C-alpha cells in the first residue's frame, strides 16, 4: 500500500481502477463502458398501430445501428457525476480568469428561474398568455438600458461574440442605409480576438491600431487612421489590461467627425456598472455579457447571453422580433420591421438567463450594483498591491477590475506564465488568464471579481507569493506542475499538432 501511494499517480491509476476516491479514479469513455443489450429506458407496450419506417422514409432509414453506447441508468449517472468531480467551479473556489468575470452565481437566481410559470413558459404561447415572462424581459431591457445609458436593446444574441456580430450587423445596416457600407473596422491590438473575427465575418477589413505607452488609444494615430471608409472602431473599455480609457469622449468625436461609429465590447462592464454609462461617453452600440457582469452561469455551456444595446438611430435595424407595449399596457412581440437585420437566434434568446440577470439586478438595486463595481475594483487593486513587488507590472496606470502582470522576472529563471498558472492548480485555484492580452509578453491576467472575500484573496496572494519563491529556489517544480491533479502536465503541443478528435472502436 505504501509503495503504491508513493508511485506516480499515472502508475497508480493504471494499477487501480476502483478503490480510490472518485476524484482520482479512472473513468473510461462512455463508449468504452458500453455492453450490448444494456439500456436505461423501458418503453410501455405499443398502443398505436405500428408503421414500417422504410415504407415512410425509404433510403433515409438507418441500416446499421448508430453505434451509440449501451449502458444502464446508474452507469450513466455515475459516469457523468464522476466526470463532474474532475472539474473546477466557482462553487469550489476562486476562479480569477481575467477578462471572464467568473463571479458567483447567486442561489436566488436559480430559485427564481425555476418558478414554474417562468421555467415552463413555452415560446409558442400567445403573447396575451405570456405576459408574465414578457414583463420580465421588458423590465430587464429597461434596467440594462438604464445601466448602459443607451436607447434600445435586443436580448437575442446567445453570448458575447454573437452580440458583437449582431452589433456590427447593425453598424453595417446603418451605413448601408446612408448609402455606403464602408470598408474597414479599426481594432486596437489589445482587443479580444473575437473583435477582428466579428469584423471579418461581417465583411469588413480589419485595421490594427497600436496601443500607446499606457496601453490606451493613441489619439493621433487614431485620427490619422479614421477615414470615410471606416465603419467603426471596436473598443473594449476598460481595456484588456484593465485600464479605463479616459479619452473616450475624444475617441468618439474623432470617429463621429468622419461618420464612423463607436462599438464597445462590454466584456469589462463589471468595472463600470453604476459608475459611468457607455451611452454617456459616446458609444453608439455595445454588447453586454449577462454571464459575466450579471452573474448568470459562465462556462460549462452557461448558456451565455449577449444583449446588444444601441442608440436610437440604430433601433430600426435591431433583430426581430422587438418587444413593445400596447396602449392597454400589454406587451407583444413586433415582427414587422422592414429595416431589421433579421433574426439572430431562435425564439427570444436564452430566456432563462434573463430571469437570473433580472433577479441579480433587482436583488442588488442601484446602490448594490455600484457597491459591486467598487468591490470588484478594490479586490483587483488589493491583489495588485500585494503582488507587485514579486511580479512585473508592465503598465503602471491605475487598474480597474483586473490586473495584468508579466512573467518577465520569472522568465529569467526559465519559468513562463503558463507554468505559474499550472502550479496555481496545485494550490487549489483555477489559473488566471495566460498570455493575454497580447500587448503584454507573458501576461498573467487576474480578475478576482467582487465575489471573493479578503480571506480568499489572501489565500490566492499567499499561493502566488509562494510560487514566486519556488521559481527562485526550485524552478523545476513549477515548470513540471501540476503535481496534485488526476493527470499531470499534458502535451499541449502534440495535442495541437496531432489532435485526436474522436474516439474510434478498436
Amino acid at each position, binding site marked *: 500500500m505504501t509503495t503504491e501511494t508513493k508511485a506516480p499517480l499515472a502508475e497508480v491509476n493504471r494499477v487501480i481502477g476502483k478503490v480510490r476516491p472518485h476524484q482520482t479514479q479512472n473513468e473510461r469513455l462512455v463508449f468504452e463502458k458500453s455492453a450490448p443489450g444494456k439500456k436505461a429506458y423501458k418503453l410501455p407496450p405499443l398502443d398505436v398501430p405500428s408503421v414500417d419506417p422504410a415504407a415512410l422514409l425509404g433510403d433515409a432509414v438507418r441500416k446499421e445501428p448508430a453505434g451509440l453506447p449501451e449502458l444502464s441508468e446508474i452507469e450513466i449517472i455515475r459516469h457523468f457525476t464522476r466526470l463532474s468531480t474532475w472539474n473546477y467551479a466557482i462553487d469550489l473556489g476562486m476562479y480569477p480568469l481575467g477578462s471572464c468575470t467568473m463571479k458567483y452565481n447567486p442561489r436566488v437566481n436559480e430559485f427564481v428561474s425555476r418558478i414554474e410559470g417562468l421555467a415552463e413558459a413555452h415560446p409558442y404561447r400567445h403573447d396575451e398568455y405570456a405576459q408574465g415572462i414578457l414583463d420580465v424581459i421588458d423590465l430587464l431591457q429597461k434596467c440594462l438600458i438604464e445601466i448602459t445609458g443607451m436607447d434600445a436593446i435586443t436580448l437575442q444574441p446567445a453570448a458575447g461574440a454573437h452580440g458583437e456580430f449582431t452589433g456590427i450587423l447593425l453598424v453595417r445596416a446603418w451605413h448601408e442605409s446612408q448609402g455606403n457600407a464602408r470598408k474597414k473596422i479599426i481594432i486596437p491590438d489589445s482587443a479580444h*480576438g473575437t473583435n477582428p473575427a466579428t469584423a471579418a465575418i461581417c465583411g469588413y477589413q480589419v485595421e490594427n491600431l497600436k496601443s500607446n505607452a499606457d496601453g490606451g488609444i493613441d489619439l493621433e494615430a487614431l485620427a490619422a487612421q479614421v477615414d470615410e471608409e471606416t465603419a467603426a472602431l471596436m473598443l473594449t473599455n476598460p481595456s484588456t489590461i484593465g485600464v479605463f480609457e479616459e479619452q473616450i469622449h475624444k475617441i468618439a468625436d474623432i470617429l463621429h467627425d468622419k461618420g464612423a461609429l463607436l462599438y464597445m465590447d462590454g466584456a469589462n462592464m463589471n468595472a463600470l456598472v453604476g459608475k459611468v454609462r457607455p451611452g454617456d461617453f459616446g458609444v453608439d452600440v455595445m454588447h453586454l455579457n449577462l454571464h459575466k457582469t450579471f452573474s448568470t452561469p459562465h462556462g460549462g455551456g452557461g448558456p451565455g447571453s449577449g444583449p446588444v444595446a444601441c442608440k436610437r438611430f440604430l433601433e430600426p435595424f435591431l433583430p426581430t422580433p422587438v418587444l413593445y407595449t400596447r396602449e392597454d399596457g400589454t406587451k407583444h412581440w413586433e415582427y414587422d420591421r422592414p429595416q431589421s437585420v433579421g433574426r439572430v437566434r431562435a425564439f427570444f434568446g436564452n430566456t432563462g438567463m434573463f430571469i437570473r440577470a433580472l433577479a441579480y439586478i433587482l436583488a442588488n438595486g442601484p446602490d448594490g450594483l455600484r457597491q459591486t463595481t467598487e468591490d470588484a475594483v478594490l479586490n483587483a487593486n488589493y491583489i495588485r498591491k500585494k503582488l507587485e513587488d514579486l511580479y512585473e507590472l508592465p503598465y503602471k496606470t491605475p487598474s480597474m477590475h483586473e490586473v495584468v502582470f508579466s512573467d518577465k522576472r520569472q522568465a529569467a529563471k526559465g519559468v513562463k506564465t503558463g507554468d505559474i498558472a499550472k502550479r496555481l492548480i496545485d494550490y487549489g485555484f483555477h489559473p488566471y488568464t*495566460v*498570455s493575454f492580452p*497580447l500587448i503584454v*509578453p507573458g501576461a498573467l491576467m487576474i480578475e478576482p471579481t467582487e465575489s471573493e472575500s479578503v480571506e480568499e484573496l489572501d489565500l490566492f496572494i499567499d499561493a502566488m507569493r509562494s510560487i514566486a519563491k519556488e521559481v527562485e529556489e526550485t524552478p523545476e517544480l513549477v515548470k513540471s506542475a501540476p503535481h496534485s491533479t488526476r493527470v499531470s502536465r499534458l502535451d499541449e*503541443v502534440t495535442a*495541437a*499538432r496531432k489532435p485526436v478528435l474522436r474516439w474510434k472502436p478498436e
Partner: protein
Amino acid sequence: MAYPTNYRYTREHEWISVEGKIGTIGITDYAQNSLGDIVYVDAPKVGDAVTANATFGSVESVKAVSDLFSPVTGTVTEVNEALKTEPDKINSAPHETWIIKVELANAAEYDSLLDAAAYEKFITEEQ
C-alpha cells in the same frame, strides 16, 4: 541567434531576402520565441496578391494566433508546403524556414525595411 545581415526585417517581425525579383519571407527568431511552439501556419495560395504592411496569413502557436504581415507588395509564387506537416521547423530554424515566396511589384519597398542592426536595436527596445 544572429540575424542574417543579407535579410531585411519588419517591425512585425518578418524577414525577407531578395534574389532578383523574388522575395523569400519568414518570421524572425524573436517572433518564434515570443509565440512559443508553432502548431499551424495559414499561408496564402500561389497567385494571391500580398500588400506591404497588410496581413497575408497567420501562425498559430499553443499560446495564440498571430497575423503575418507582408514586408512587400507582390504576387505569391511559391508556398512552403512542408509547413503543413512540420510547422515546428519555424521554431527550430526560423531564419532558414521560409513561408512564402513573392514576386516583388516594387523593389523600393525592400530598401525601406530595417536592416539586421536596426532590427536588433528595435527588438532590444521592445523587450
